[in-house]
């Protein structure tokens, strides 16, 4: 992946140009202030250099209008930049509803990627062009960070929680994928590539190789094998609440609290079931902490999600 030296990374996502424009704006502001202040200082040093040792310049104790000016002007510049940055951040934070889901698990020192269709890859991420991709990420051990400079985006990959990021690639090609959060000995080799393909090539790539079971199928298999289905039946009446139509909906807990059954909630309920008991049920579910891998968890969650999609 040898590339020529450049001063500027490639622009390969919908964010890239906007981030770059923001960057150039900030560079312009910085250059302006640096050059202006340094020029003034050099000018003063020359113009007001000490000519004789008896000089006793008249004191100037200050000027309220000047103080106000150089407080208020930078303040408004800052607020402007803040607004631009926050607005952009909002868009970078919220994935479009129709985004394609891909699941990432970081571990010392590799990236494991699962596509919903069942395709898996290591240290590589294949994505179709001009399609919003939403990554749901977690770590098996320490904190990592999934960073794609050409897309101008990154997100920490934290053990014990799901972080998401999204992007839409705009240019076919291969791009650097870095782990940006220090994670131990081989941190700097926890790198890979993101391959952006035309839609058709992507479909061919997905279909190629051994066509394994999809994530939902795998999740269903685990759901049976782990005995979840014994209590969580498809109709109500089981010892545990039914999971059909649960995902994304509010759940009334025994404590009186109402929470939304998102990925984090389902994860927590599998690992530490009694921490949030659904109203009307007994705390009898065993813990699966330490018994299932992060990938299996993601498959289970995908399956539970699919139960809601099917119900709609």
């Amino acid at each position, binding site marked *: 992946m040898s590339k020529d030296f450049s001063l500027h990374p490639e622009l390969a996502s919908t964010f890239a140009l906007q981030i770059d424009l923001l960057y150039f704006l900030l560079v312009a502001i910085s250059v302006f202030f640096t050059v202006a202040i340094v020029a003034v200082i050099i000018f003063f040093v020359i113009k007001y250099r000490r000519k004789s040792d008896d000089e006793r310049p008249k004191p100037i104790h200050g000027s309220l209008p000047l103080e106000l000016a150089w407080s208020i002007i930078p303040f408004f510049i800052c607020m402007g930049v803040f607004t631009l940055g926050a607005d952009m951040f909002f868009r970078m934070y919220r994935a479009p509803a129709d985004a394609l889901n891909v699941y990432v698990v970081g571990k010392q020192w590799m990236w494991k990627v699962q596509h919903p269709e069942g395709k898996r890859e290591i240290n590589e991420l294949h994505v179709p062009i001009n399609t919003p991709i939403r990554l749901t990420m977690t770590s098996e051990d320490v904190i990592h960070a999934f960073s794609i400079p050409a897309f101008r985006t990154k997100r920490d990959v934290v053990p014990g929680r799901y972080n998401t990021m999204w992007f839409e690639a705009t240019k076919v090609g291969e791009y650097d994928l870095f782990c940006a959060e220090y994670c131990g000995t081989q941190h700097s080799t926890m790198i890979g590539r993101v391959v952006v393909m035309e839609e058709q090539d992507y479909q061919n790539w997905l279909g190629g190789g051994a066509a394994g079971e999809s994530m939902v199928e795998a999740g269903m298999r685990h759901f049976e094998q782990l005995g979840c289905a014994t209590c969580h039946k498809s109709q109500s009446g089981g010892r545990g609440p039914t999971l059909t139509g649960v995902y994304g909906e509010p759940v009334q807990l025994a*404590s009186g609290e109402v929470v939304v059954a998102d990925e984090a909630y389902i994860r927590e309920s599998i690992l*530490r*079931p*009694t*921490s949030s*008991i659904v109203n009307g049920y007994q*705390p009898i*579910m*065993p*813990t699966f*902490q330490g018994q299932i891998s992060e990938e299996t968890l993601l498959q289970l969650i995908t399956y539970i999600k699919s139960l809601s999609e099917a119900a709609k």
Partner: protein
Amino acid sequence: MSKTASHHPALQHYFDDLKQQHGAATMGMWAFLAQEIMFFGGLFAGYTVYRYKYFNAFVEGSNLLPIAWGGLNTVILIASSFTVAMAVRCAQQGLHRSVFNWFMATMVLGLGFLGVKAIEYSHKYHDHLIPGLNFQWDGPMAGPMKIFFSFYFVMTGMHALHMIIGVGLMLWLIPKIRAEKFGPQYYSPIENFGLYWHFVDIVWIFLFPLLYLIGRHL
């Protein structure tokens, strides 16, 4: 420069007079206590986060703490705050013998608190509830329970360490009290010790409900 008390043996050479010295000592002590508040504040912040996150486990853990021993210790500490306040008052009035007596009472109460704490810790040891030593908990909430007991031991341990330091300070001050070094003009070491002791007491006043009483329905 009028130095009315310039010959007082306790006056350090870099102060102008005892008043300045006393003011500095008091201010320094309050600044020190401010940092103590932040020190325990970090622990309280962490406690709050997890109590919110694992409410059930914290209720369950809290119910394993003996309210009687905790309550007894609360009474002991409040009593010791009274005795130390009396010691400061007597020092201000120059009642050397009483200062000594009140100090000894404070010391006995402080040691009593530590004794009770030791008994509680030994019970935890028998119940396999000490994280890092022999923690064992069967049940789905093993992790959060361990976190609760980690907080219990770090918070009460840090508090007990402050108590031990307090007892050490008393051991350092008692010979000076016997030598009648303190009086109406110079009592800031006694007063500052009193501030320290009250502070340690107040920390317990927060620890007791947070650890022992939380979620307990009487």
